[in-house]
């Protein structure tokens, strides 16, 4: 089932409110607090990356966000209109020489939090999958 299928302009000022709005639509899934926190962070980082690094803050370019709920998993896809990137070429932010850097943690967090992450079309699309556990009680 598709829960979200929206296209937004590359405006950084819209990202946080957009992500918060998305999670209002996921309330019916009764996700636990930690899962909501982690999903929100990953979607936020992916949308920010798409606007900033993908579309280079070009307001004429768009970001497409699709969220699907399958039997026991949530699939979030974020697509920009930029030139793409090689996720394998990103430096490891936990390496001693990078730990003090001010950037480069977004994709690393996504890769470590989500259960499956794929980069499609040369990195224009990031597809993030989380296996869901319903809140007990």
């Amino acid at each position, binding site marked *: 089932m598709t829960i979200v299928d929206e296209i937004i302009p590359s405006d*950084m*000022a819209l*990202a*946080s409110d957009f992500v918060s709005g998305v999670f209002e639509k996921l309330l019916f899934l009764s996700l636990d*607090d*930690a899962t909501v*926190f*982690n999903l*929100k*962070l990953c979607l*936020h*980082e992916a949308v*920010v990356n798409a606007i900033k690094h993908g579309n280079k803050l070009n307001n004429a370019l768009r970001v497409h966000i699709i969220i699907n709920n399958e039997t026991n998993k949530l699939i979030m896809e974020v697509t920009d209109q930029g030139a793409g990137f090689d996720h394998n070429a990103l430096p490891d*932010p*936990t390496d001693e020489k990078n*730990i*003090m*850097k*001010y*950037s480069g*943690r*977004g994709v*690393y*967090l996504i890769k*470590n*939090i989500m259960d499956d992450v794929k980069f499609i079309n040369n990195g224009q699309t990031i597809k993030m999958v989380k296996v869901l556990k319903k809140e007990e009680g």
Partner: protein
Amino acid sequence: MDIKLENIKDVALVVVGGKINMDNCNELRDAFKKILKEGKTKVLIDFNKVDFIDSSGIASLIEMFQNLEKVGGQMRLCHVNKNIIGLFEITKVHKLFGMFENREEALKEF
């Protein structure tokens, strides 16, 4: 994000609330600059009311940590919720910041 600055003896206490993200982390940077300008070198950040932080927010903490390190200062965090601790652990920045259960425990370690 709410930021309140207080002093506990020679320690600058920064009480933060809400979300620390790319929209507002410059406000936190400005608060840190003010503390450094006042010559304070011991900083305790109370995360009790922080419910979200993104990679930009983490970067602002690293920047403060570095600035304090340059002047021989120290930075401690307290009341950090388990979701945020999880992010610090994934990115290994928890090794940089001393993290404590509460203000009292953190103050003891300066």
